[in-house]
Structure formats: C-alpha cells, structure tokens
C-alpha cells in the first residue's frame, strides 16, 4: 500500500499531540490543497476556513498547555452537508434548506470536536442523500478527483472526493443504500457503513430512518477504524443506538485473517448478475485470492434473496423519505414561497424547493404507503427484509465474512445515467442488502479497472462484526495492487504537501 505515512490521520494526530507539528500548520496545508483544486472538484458546499483556523489554534493552545486534545487532535475533517452543525448552514444540497442554521450539533460532530478534530467544511451530496453520483445537488456536480469528467459516486460524493483529493484525511458520509461505500469505491478510498445503531443518527438529517447510518471515509483502513472509534458508541438521543461503547478496532487491525471463513456472494459477483463489469469481477476474485493467501478459507456462497434487495429498498426508502421530508413545509425553517393560504404555501414551497429526484421518491413513497397499497408494497418489502436477514443468518452460520464488489462498474462519466433513474439505481445493487439487514460493510480500494479508475471490494459482516471486518479490510489494503491512483498519484502530494516532514 502506498498512502504516504505523513498524511494519515493517525500520524497527524500523533505528531500534533506530541508537538512535532502544529495543528495550524497542518490545517493551512490542507486549506492550500482545497484552494488549489476545489474550484474544479466542487467537493464542498461550504469551507469553514476561519472557524477551522480558530479550532486548530485552540488545539495548539491545549498542546502548549500540556493538555491532550484527543485522538484526532488537529486532524482536518469534512462533514457531509446533511449533518447538523450549530450555527453553520446545513443544506442537504437542497434549495429547501438554503440558509437554515441548526441550533445544535449532531452527536457525531460533538464527538469529533471533543476528540480534537478540526471541521474544515460541509461537503456536497445528492439532494437529501438521494442519488448515486452527486449530480442531484442544488449546488452543482462534484467531480471525481481522479478523472474530473467522471462522477465521484454518491450520495456522499463530496466527502469521498474531499478525501481522494487530499483536502482532508478524514470525512464523514451517510449510507442509506450504499452512499458511503459506492463513492468510496469510485474515488479509490476506504468507506465504512457501520452496523445500524453503532453510530448515533442524532443530527443527521433523515432520508430513510431505518436504513441511514453515518460512517467514515479515509485513505487508509486504520484511519477509518480510528474515526469510527471516536464517533461510535451509545447515544441516549438516538433510540436505535446500540447501548454499548464503540468497539476497539485499532488493537485488532493487524490480527490478519488466518482461519477466517470468507464467502464470496454468488448472486452479487457471479456471471449471472447483469451489470457487474468484467474488470470489477476480476478484481473481486483477485481480492478473494489475496485473502486465501493470507490464511482465510474462501468459498463461493449463495445469499439468494439479495437479488430482491434493490426492489425492496426502492419501496422502503422512499416510503420513509416521504414521511421524513414532510416537515419541509415552509412553516418553521428554510425556504418559504408565499401563497394565499397555508396549504398553497406548502405546495409552492415544496414545488420550488425540492429537485426532481427528491420529488420522484416522495411520490413513490407516498404511493407505497397509501390505503389499499400498503400491504402490496411496504408490507411485502418488509418481508423481503426478513428474508434477507434470514439468508444472511444462514450464510453467517458458515462464514465469518462475506465478499462482493462494492459497485458494478468503475466511475462513469458525468451525465451518463441522469436520464434514466433505473440505471442509476442499479449502482446500489451490491450495497443495499447490508442496509436492509442493518449489517456493517465497507469498501476497500483494490486495484483499477480497464479505464485506470479504482475498483472497490466490499467486505460484509454480521451485526457488530466490525472488528473482524476491519481485519479483512487491512489484509486487502496491504495486498492491493500497487499504483493505486488515489493514494499513489500526485493528488495528495501536490495538494497538501503534508507528506514531507
């Protein structure tokens, strides 16, 4: 693996805590990187340079006073712009929330700041996290730093691009059907969707509540582990939060995969599934071979109901979204388009404030929950969820971890799929089953496709299986073919200059 040591969050935090580097210097290097390429990439909706400088100086002051600012001391982080930040605009890349400043911080933001992290900005996303390319943003498309003619994936495309471009070593995304893992794969970085309930959703603007989960982006597996340790653990403000502390990942990272049983999901990787590109399939099989070489037992296995995941997802997620997005009615916050009465004002506001994809999903979800259709759509989809859980339970009786591609293809050209929502939706076919099951999974960069763009391999684990999942991810990272574009190319070096001590 070829991520320059000096650019990782672990090394930055360690150097800042020891006084070897100042948080302010590290920040300025990252702000320079942003200045250099942000105009082209458009990863951020908002860069908080002044606030970040004040935060970095505060970290330095604490170090100077002999205090420990925490495990992420002075590490610049980017936040997907659907996480609430006190007094700082939080838009979800939607006109309807333009100008809204939340009066509170999301739990993950509180925890990052308490750990010494320095928030440098809010990143672009598909409006309300609905999309797979970050093209559905009211504030413009985000471009893939590895090839600016291509999409970064989505919906957390801004966060993935920020990390891939060396703007920040760490970023947070949210993943409802693949919105962290798919852009991580397309941008050649690590992206983790934790177990449902492992990370508090308090302050995450909801898309589909039973599927949403916050997770890290980083250039290395170890950095994602570090970030997850900081943001994870019980939060009483989220009723679905698992009442346990965050698992210790750092101490098991290097335990390897010797003796682990790993199953490659046939339905998501075999020749039968239309749309999985040959080069992606080839990297997956190389990854499986690498795990085997490291001592794991690898076999192909069937998780049959995963093929119904996409259909079930496109009922459950829009259904919950149709309800979650009802509150954007112009009464209390965000956009208001005046009209003679309250009902017309609601309609005018929502018509002007929401983009096409959001409207499409609100309509889908409203229909699916309607009297007379509930059982056929929402009810049936919940049954599919149960089936998927049962299939996974059977598979995890035989295997410790499962493996699949993260996305069917490498990054596709901007504009290629915007005209056909169904083609776009198919991007999430491999990632959706974990959301429906509430299980953790992560994307690890593993070589490139025929176009030279990165390929991601997805490691899936049962609920709370993060420690084992990270062990396999670490093995894959070490075994990944050299010359990985995101971490070995010029972007990080030229942007940050933080490699050179």
């Amino acid at each position, binding site marked *: 693996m070829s991520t320059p040591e000096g650019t990782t969050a672990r090394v930055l935090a360690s150097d800042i805590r020891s006084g070897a580097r100042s948080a302010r210097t590290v920040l300025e290097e990252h702000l320079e990187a942003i200045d250099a390429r942000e105009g082209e990439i458009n990863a951020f909706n908002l860069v908080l340079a002044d606030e970040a400088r004040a935060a970095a100086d505060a970290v330095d002051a604490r170090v100077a006073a002999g205090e420990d600012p925490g495990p992420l001391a002075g590490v610049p982080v980017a936040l997907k712009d659907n996480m609430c930040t006190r007094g700082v605009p939080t838009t979800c890349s939607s006109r309807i929330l333009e100008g809204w400043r939340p009066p509170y911080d999301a739990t993950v933001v509180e925890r990052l700041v308490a750990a010494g992290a320095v928030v440098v900005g809010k990143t672009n996303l598909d409006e309300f996290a609905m999309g797979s390319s970050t093209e559905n943003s009211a504030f413009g498309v985000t471009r893939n730093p590895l090839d600016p003619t291509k999409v970064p994936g989505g919906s957390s495309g801004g966060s993935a691009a920020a990390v891939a471009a060396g703007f920040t070593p760490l970023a947070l995304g949210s993943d409802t059907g693949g919105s962290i893992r798919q852009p991580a794969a397309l941008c050649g970085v690590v992206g983790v969707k934790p177990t449902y309930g492992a990370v508090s959703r308090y302050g995450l603007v909801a898309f589909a509540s039973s599927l949403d989960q916050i997770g890290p982006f980083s250039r290395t597996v170890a950095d994602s582990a570090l970030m997850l340790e900081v943001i994870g653990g019980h939060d009483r403000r989220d009723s679905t939060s698992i009442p346990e502390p965050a698992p210790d990942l750092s101490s098991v990272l290097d335990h390897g995969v010797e003796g682990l049983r790993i199953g490659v999901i046939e339905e998501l990787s075999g020749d039968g599934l239309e749309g999985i590109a040959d080069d992606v399939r080839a990297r997956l099989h190389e990854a499986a071979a690498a795990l085997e070489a490291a001592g794991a037992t690898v076999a192909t296995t069937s998780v049959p109901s995963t093929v119904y995941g996409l259909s079930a997802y496109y009922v459950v997620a829009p259904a919950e979204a149709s309800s979650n997005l009802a509150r954007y009615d112009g009464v*209390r916050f965000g956009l208001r388009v005046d009209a003679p009465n309250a009902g017309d004002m609601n309609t005018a506001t929502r018509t002007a404030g929401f983009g096409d994809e959001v409207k499409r999903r609100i309509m889908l979800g409203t229909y699916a*929950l309607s009297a007379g259709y509930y059982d056929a759509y929402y009810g049936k989809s919940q049954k599919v969820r149960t089936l998927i859980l049962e299939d996974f339970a059977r598979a995890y009786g035989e295997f410790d971890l499962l493996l699949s591609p993260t996305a069917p293809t490498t990054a596709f050209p901007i504009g290629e799929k915007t005209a056909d929502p169904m083609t776009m939706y198919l991007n999430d076919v491999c990632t959706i089953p974990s959301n429906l099951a509430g299980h953790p999974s992560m994307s690890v960069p593993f070589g490139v496709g025929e176009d030279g763009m990165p390929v991601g391999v997805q490691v899936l684990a049962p609920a709370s299986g993060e420690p084992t999942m990270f062990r396999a991810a670490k093995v894959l990272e070490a075994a990944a073919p050299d010359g990985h574009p995101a971490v070995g190319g010029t972007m990080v070096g030229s942007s940050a200059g933080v490699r050179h001590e």
Partner: protein
Amino acid sequence: MSDDATTEIVPGWETIIGLEVHAELATATKLFSDAPNRFGGEPNTYVDPVSLGLPGSLPVLNEQAVELAIRVGLSLHCRVQRSVFARKNYFYPDMPKDFQISQYDLPINEEGWMELADGRRVGIERAHLEEDTGKSTHVGGGGRIHEAGHSLVDYNRAGVPLIEIVGAPDLRSAEDARAYVSELRSILVAIGASDGKMEEGSMRVDCNVSVRPVGDAVLGTRCEIKNINSLRSLGRAIVYESRRQVDLITSGERVEQQTRHWNEDEGRTHKLRSKEEAYDYRYFPEPDLVPVDPSEEWIESVRAALPVLPRERRHRLAEAAGVDTATASLTVERGMDDLAVDAIGAGADPARVLVHVENNLADGAGALTATSFAALVAMEVGGDLTATQAKTVLATLVTDGGDPAAVATDLGFEAMDDGALESVVDDLIAAHPEDWVAFTSGDDKERKKKSGFFVGMVMKATNGQADGRAVNEILARRAEA
C-alpha cells in the same frame, strides 16, 4: 348498554354513542424530548429541536409517560401489552413534523372496561400513547384557517404526551356520555395520570354518534363530532346530532359519514369533511423508535402502587351504608367516602351520614373527624339534637373541630326531656282550643296547617330547642286520646 325507553332523545329512535377522549399526561417533560410539559407560557418557549421537528432531531420515549399510560390501562382493566409507535402522516402547520407519532395496530392498552356510577359497564377498546400538536391562532376571517389573513403557531403544546382512550359504542344518551366522561376524569385524576381539565384542553372529547330505530340490530352511519369543550357541550351536541340524523332519515335522506364541528354559540354541528375527503394517514411503524415492551415486574409494580379507584370506593361505601352505588357516588366524588365509611363503622346511622355529606358538607369536611361525625349523628338520631341543631353543630365541627356534645352545650342546645315538652304542648292546646279542634277534625290540608302552627308555637316557647318530630308525635297521641 341501556334499553330504557326514557333515554330516547327522539322517541322511537336509539342513539348510539362512542367517545374518544384525549387526556394530556401529567409528566414533567414531553413525550419524546426534555422540553417541559407545562400549560401556558410565552409562545414557543417550551420547545427544543425535537418538539419543533427540526431536521436531524430524533424522538426518545419518556418513561414516565409510559408508566402513566400503564396506570391508565390497568385502571381501565385493559390488557397492557407490547406496543409499537406509528407515524400518522398529514400536513398541518401546527404539527411540526407533518406527521404525528401515535400508536396504530399495536396500542399499549387494549380491551378493557369502565364501570359507571350506577354500576353499568362500558367497553374500552384501547388506550394508546401519542403526541399532542401545537396550537394555531388564525388571525382575521373569523378565526378559521381558510379565511384567515395569517396564522400564528405556538409549539409549546407540541409533543406533550396524550393518552387517547377509545370507548366502545355502548352509550345511549347524553346523560350516559356525561357520566362516562365524569367517571373517566375521576379515574385519571385519582391515579395522577392527568389533571383532567377540560377548560384548559388537557382533556378533550370527540364523540361518535349514530341513530337507528329502536329494535333495529344494524348500526346506522356515524358522524364524528369534534371541538367539544365541556360536559355541557357534549350533552348538547349529542342531542343536536341525534335529531339532525333522525330528521335526515325521516325525510328520506341518508346520513353521510362525516367529521363534524360543534359550534357552541350556534348550538349546532356543521360538516368539516366527508368520508371521501378524509385523510389517508399512511400509517407505518415509526422507524426512529423501538417497540415498548414493559416487563411483567414493571406492570405489577405499577398495579401495586395504584390508589383505590372510584369504583372500588363506591362499592365499599355502598356496602357499608347499605345503599346502591349510584347513591354512594356523590360522597365518593366529594372524596368523603373514607370519612363516611369510618363514621358508619363507628356506629353512625348511614342514611343520616349520606344526607349530611350531600346537604351540609358541599364545601368540604374541614376539621370534622369520623368519631365526632358519628357522635353527632348519634345525638341527632337519639333526639338530643334536632336536625337544625345538628346542622349548626356540624358547621362548627367543620371549622373548629371538637366534641359535638360540648359544641351543642356551648351553643345552648340543651335537649328537653319528654315530660317537659309534653307539658309545653298541653299548655298550648289549652290556650288555643279553636286551633286544636281544627287540627283534630280538619281534612289533611287543615291538619297539616295546624300542625305547623303548633310546632311553631312550641319552638317559640322553647327557643327552638324542641325537636319538631317529637312535637308532632305528641300532637298525634293527644288527638287519638
């Protein structure tokens, strides 16, 4: 429940009534957040991100609200069970999230009953938890949303915990409905679940009404009446709505299923929306909350801590006093059943005890103890005090306490012995021979009049210390002699 013909609002027609009562639970904080649950206050001061439904906020269930809901369920003899919150989706400006978190197919309490003061039982279908909405004030246009110039919204009430108690359609008259609400209110107040103040809106009643010809087995089409703000309105609305529906049917029209609004000033209901215009609430399980599954131990500990409920108190007093529960209910309502039972236990005449509670203790029992109450009643029944004197002594006992015999002496209420009273009566008969003849030989009317005359004369002669009943007995004996 009642097939008594006297309950018919329109002769020949039966009115079927089922009530849905919303009561605000007396918790310190809201159902899903730490914002205070308080009445009044400057608009939008008892709010936080959760009760305003701000993006990113999440509900966390208030355990105290669950405990109060369990108290309600147990008091209404419901099955307390595992329950699931659901979203009820509809747009309204005073509802912060544009959905209400309620319970739908799995409510916390199901299938119970409540006994009215007269002993009849009314079915309780369910009693579930849900959150209250804010309050809109429509400025201009007569206060109605569609004509208003603008509207103001206060979210202080948004998220306040409610228990919605759905009664079975077992009620048949306005009196039934009022008795049901009164009893429910007594229970809610007794168990500390709610303050039950209809005037502050902490208890609200929606009323389902249908009519059918007496003897018909098939239910008529019902209408739901909203905006009922007092027991008086409830009765009036039921009578109005019954007549309206009977008029429709008898004039050859049909009752349409509607939600109707009670207008207290006009004394009538008017249509809010028809069945076709009814909201499709698109209920689905609330994904931000986990199911509520109270343990047996918790339920039993709540049960053990419940106070004695009005029903049990009525039965206890009725048994002690040898009366029916309806007769006992006023004493229970006044909270004097302990006093009455203890006084009766100390030997007091039950009928006199209940009469005093009803007539002479409307403003409370004050310093009156069961022992002194019993002693007073004994003096009265034994003829040592007249009814009038007993009432006066009782008033002193309520304000100052003390021993009734000593109080009577202080007030100069010396009991006259029978011999002294007889000689006073005989003297008066001798002094008024014409009146005496009129008494002995007159008709009932004349006899009654003259008896009043003699009693009055005796009272005058004895400075009111004579017992009127004793005087009448002496007059009767002399007349027969």
